[in-house]
């Protein structure tokens, strides 16, 4: 008796009792569809958040001073930090020089606001922000024209700046090329700062906020080399930092970059008894989301397991009824030469097929649920351009792992709960079974 014959027989007897079979499957359908719905939403949420973090700068590391042997950031207050412990700018410069294409310094230093008068005699307000070559990454900006600030701009105290696309519209006339132009910024302290525009960046409203209701009123940052900003603040000696942001070129693998940074600082802090450097990344946030998703998945898995158990008991119940109903058939088959094993296999196959069909229907319903949620989510996202910028089109991503596991588990449910009725059928005495009405 081939496997295929068994399958045909199982489908035949399931088809003979369609309604009953469907009701039997219900528990399994509900369990599996719940799991698939939740895991689909989980994987989609994760992918969407990761996408958003990528666009916001998942290529960022926060490098911070941490007490050696301490578990987390908040434990660092135990031993007093001395100036020698702090991260020196020279170290950071050295790091950036060591990996020029890979790592950028992303710290920023707010140096107050300033105003400029445009050709129409209107004042344009800006924020003066001391920056490095990676500060724009940190703020989610992208260079539209010209170039970004470089470390040379910083170390050589160049009077350069990059301005936002919004500033260009506020300050310049239409069609004017801002690159290479010199602007004069009147600072809060009364100084006039002459800066040459080397680049224009796209302002990221999602990260930095819209601030004002109209674009004309908006105050966007003008990034200047931090040395210039510090000069403006009257800072001529930088004592060092407790922590700083670093960004990296996304061409590189985040893990590799992190290792580079870690080993660089480990060397620098090798002789420091109390303090070392730790690195946290935006990916850590993703890990947190993963934890949440995992907890939800476990809860759903438990619910699904209960539902599969109940469904399985239902399958067993129906199989027992079916075996009793078909006692005569079993007797006939035995008289015709069916071995115990063949009868057992027939009924187990039937139970497996019932559960598997239930599982497949459950998976399809789960996928459909996912698509529906995706449809609604996309409608909501599209209704707000800032969300659309950040999230783009949410694509529903079913978890293939969950689908495979669901199939396997529904099959196992069939085996487990089909085995008892099947062996009951197999053990029947053919003489009694033939006499059964």
């Amino acid at each position, binding site marked *: 008796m081939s496997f295929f014959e068994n399958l045909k027989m199982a489908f035949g007897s399931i088809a003979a009792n369609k309604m009953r079979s469907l009701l039997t499957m219900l528990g399994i359908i509900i369990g599996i569809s719940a799991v698939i719905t939740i895991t689909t939403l989980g994987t989609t949420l994760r992918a969407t958040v990761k996408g958003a973090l990528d666009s916001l700068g998942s290529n960022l590391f926060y490098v911070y001073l941490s007490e050696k042997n301490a578990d987390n950031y908040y434990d660092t207050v135990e031993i007093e930090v001395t100036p020698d412990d702090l991260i020196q700018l020279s170290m950071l410069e050295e790091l950036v020089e060591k990996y020029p294409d890979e790592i950028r310094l992303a710290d920023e230093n707010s140096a107050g606001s300033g105003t400029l008068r445009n050709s129409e005699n209107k004042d344009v307000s800006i924020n003066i922000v001391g920056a490095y070559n990676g500060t724009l990454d940190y703020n989610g900006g992208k260079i539209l024209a010209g170039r970004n600030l470089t470390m040379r701009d910083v170390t050589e105290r160049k009077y350069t700046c990059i301005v936002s696309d919004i500033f260009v519209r506020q300050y310049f006339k239409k069609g004017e090329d801002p690159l290479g132009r010199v602007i004069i910024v009147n600072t809060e302290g009364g100084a006039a700062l002459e800066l040459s525009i080397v680049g224009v960046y796209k302002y990221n409203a999602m990260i930095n906020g819209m601030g004002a209701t109209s674009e004309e009123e908006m105050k966007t940052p003008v990034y200047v080399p931090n040395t210039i900003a510090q000069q403006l603040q009257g800072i001529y000696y930088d004592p060092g930092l407790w922590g700083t942001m670093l960004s990296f070129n996304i061409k590189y693998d985040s893990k590799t970059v992190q290792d580079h940074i870690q080993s660089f600082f480990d060397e620098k802090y090798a002789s420091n008894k109390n303090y070392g450097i730790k690195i946290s990344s935006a990916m850590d946030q993703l890990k947190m989301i993963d934890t949440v998703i995992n907890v939800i998945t476990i809860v759903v898995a438990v619910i699904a397991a209960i539902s599969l158990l109940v469904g399985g008991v239902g399958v067993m119940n129906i199989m027992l009824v079916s075996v009793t109903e078909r006692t005569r058939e079993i007797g006939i088959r035995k008289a*015709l030469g069916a071995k115990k094993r063949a009868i057992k296999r027939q009924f187990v196959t039937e139970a497996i097929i019932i559960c598997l069909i239930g599982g497949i229907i459950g998976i399809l319903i789960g996928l459909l649920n996912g698509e529906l949620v995706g449809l609604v989510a996309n409608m909501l996202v599209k209704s707000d351009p800032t969300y659309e910028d950040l999230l783009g089109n949410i694509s529903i991503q079913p978890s293939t792992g969950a689908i495979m596991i669901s199939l396997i588990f529904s099959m196992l449910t069939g085996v487990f709960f089909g085995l008892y009725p099947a062996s009951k059928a197999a053990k029947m005495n053919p003489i009694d079974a033939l006499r059964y009405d």
Partner: protein
Amino acid sequence: MTVSNMAKRIIEMSNIIKRYYIGQPNELQILNGISLTVHEGEFVAIVGASGSGKSTLMNMIGALDKPTEGSYLLNGVDVSKLSDKQLSEIRNKEIGFVFQTFNLISRTNALKNVEMPMLYAGKGRKERSKRAMELLELVEMEDRSTHKPNELSGGQKQRVAIARAMANDPSIILADEPTGALDTKTGRMVMDIFHKLHKQEGKTVILITHSPELASETERIITISDGSIVSDTGYTGNAPDKEVSAE
């Protein structure tokens, strides 16, 4: 040609006893030492009133049950010593059952019903359907091959059942009151098929019945009463030769 004189012994029962235990003191002895020999190609009727033990004897012959004592050689194999699995194989290959109530599987059509013993014998799909079709032709049911049992009359069902009994070319056709549920006319038709199987195919047919008229159509009548053989008209020795097709 000479084989017919020295026909093979298909059934050799000696001193078969069957007891049922319904609690220790209440043992019930159904068969009280039955000895019986049936040769290849015989058409035998086993006659007895209800409760005489003929059904138990039929179960024994059909390898559905094992004797409590005594030995039963079926084609030289001692059935009383076989395992459950081996008994299944014997039923599958050596015995063709025909029941009073037809016992077709109602969900599947006539052809699939005839195929069933071959399915359990592990025969391939093509071979099965070819042989099943031939057998349906033999019982003149080929035009009903796709009908399900509930679309067939009693006589038609029994003919399908006979075709099924022949599926694995068994040593014995074992028919238990095959006309019991049929009217006289269709019963006659079914009996004619048994005669045909016996004469043309050279099958050994054992007919269990309580009807003396049906029994009288056979070559040999064994009468059972109270678990013992009370009369046996004996082996006639002129079992028909198998029809050798000379094509």
